[in-house]
């Protein structure tokens, strides 16, 4: 069993985060519910269409779990993949587990099934919000190589809480697309440090889009998820929406003219980007604690 969350496959992450031996998969690979569309395009399939769903316990509490396999077509969402997630959330509304764990790793909509993928993303977003309004808590985990992009990034930001490692990325469009359209001056996609300063875990954490920053360890994600069971629920109501609106409004006011997290961190009086980049997660969290409150607009 790998220790690094980044290097672990979807099932290994599920087994490592949930209580040992507790995971029961729904729609196993041997059920062969895979994509009916790939054959037409002469593309290979995955037995589980690149997503694992099922039931488990976390610290003894019943949870439902989703884990996307980033190595299969970049974890992209097709018809079956999307329907598995939508169905799992419908099950959560029926069963009312302590939480739903969404282990994200996805580039967004699967182009080979583009329309099905796009519609599925909106169905999942509606399902998450509807379930949250009925008291179900959604804990999102981000830390895989394929990142959490496109429609999947939208789903992630519908969760109650996000737990992310420095290695993770959360954004809408990838740097390559932006560079293709507007050139290398706009976004040099080969500047890895820049890419992570725009979409990486540390930046998202300081901005307040992510609630918990962890080291790249399956065990660390597990601990953070258990903590989130107790402290992470956010009501789906007008008050929470207005609080988020205020945070997002003042973020544009404070930093809307910035083009790099370096500038943001400098304005917040934080150490240099180079120093921050070298800090392990716990040191980064304590170093940025008060700056983070300022960034979120907290008084």
């Amino acid at each position: 069993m790998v220790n690094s969350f980044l290097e672990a496959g979807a099932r290994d992450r599920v087994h490592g985060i949930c209580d040992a031996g507790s995971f029961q998969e729904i729609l196993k690979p041997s059920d062969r519910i895979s994509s009916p569309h790939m054959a037409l395009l002469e593309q290979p399939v995955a037995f589980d269409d690149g997503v694992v769903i099922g039931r488990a316990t976390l610290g003894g509490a019943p949870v439902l779990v989703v884990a996307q396999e980033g190595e299969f077509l970049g974890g992209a969402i097709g018809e079956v993949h999307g329907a598995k997630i939508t169905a799992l959330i419908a099950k959560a509304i029926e069963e009312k587990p302590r939480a739903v764990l969404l282990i994200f790793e996805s580039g967004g909509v699967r182009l080979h099934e583009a329309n099905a993928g796009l519609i599925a993303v909106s169905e999942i977003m509606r399902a998450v919000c509807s379930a949250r309004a009925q008291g179900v808590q959604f804990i999102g985990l981000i830390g895989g190589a394929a990142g959490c992009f496109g429609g999947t990034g939208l789903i992630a930001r519908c969760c109650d809480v996000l737990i992310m490692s420095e290695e993770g990325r959360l954004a809408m469009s990838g740097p390559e697309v932006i560079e293709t359209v507007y050139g290398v001056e706009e976004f040099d996609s080969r500047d890895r440090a820049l890419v992570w300063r725009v979409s990486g875990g540390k930046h998202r954490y300081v901005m307040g889009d992510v609630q918990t920053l962890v080291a790249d360890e399956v065990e660390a994600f597990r601990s953070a998820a258990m903590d989130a069971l107790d402290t992470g629920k956010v009501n789906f109501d007008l008050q929470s929406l207005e609080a988020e609106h205020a945070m997002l409004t003042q973020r544009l006011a404070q930093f809307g003219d910035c083009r790099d997290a370096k500038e943001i961190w400098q304005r917040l009086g934080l150490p240099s980007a180079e120093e921050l980049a070298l800090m392990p997660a716990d040191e980064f969290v304590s170093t940025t604690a008060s700056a983070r409150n300022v960034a979120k607009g907290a008084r």
Partner: protein
Amino acid sequence: MNRDQVLNALFGEGWKAEHLEADHFYGRASVLNQEVTVIGTSEKAEVGADMALTMARVVIQTIKERAGEPIVFLLDTQGQRLRRRDELMGLNGYMAHLAKAVELARQRGHVIVSVVYGEAVSGGYISTGMMADACYALADAEIKVMNLPAMARITKIPLEHLQELAKQSPVFSPGVENYLRMGHLDAVWEGDYSTQLAASISELQAKSRAEIAVDSRIARGVERGGRKAAGVVIERVLGHA
């Protein structure tokens, strides 16, 4: 159809603009003697963080000040804004915020209708139009994730092959007919748009909150033959002990 033409076709004299920029707008309109909130994009708008936030603000204002008022989204967008600055700000979060606002409006009893009158592409459509209770498109509008040449380049599947396959399957290529067949659109509109909008709002207002809360797009996709596999998954998972 451009913005002014669609506003005129839908509302005629009943339209009251509150904010009119080249690429987005909002205001109120009268439909069958009730006021509706109208929020829209135009001129193939790029939806960035600022625009998403503005639209969310309008939805929140309607929730707070106008109980039960229907909300109508009119869409013409080329998709999400592709700028480093918007990604830095966390564009996906702004879009999700807008989607959450729409969902909250639904939960608080506002019926929500969306109409694609120009183009609707990916990220520009997903947090607004696709979150509605009932989604429509004009017959000559367009809905897509990506155009076929770009898809061919990225998937490395030859364009001619994609074009051939697009004739056999509604699952990946651009087209409102595909989004109808896949179960996403309630209908494609031709002819008298204002009558159809009024009918849609009335129909939605006649439903209970429990009925409105159900997202029936997979069921429709199965019925219309566009998304059978999704139906199988739902049955297998929810029938599961």
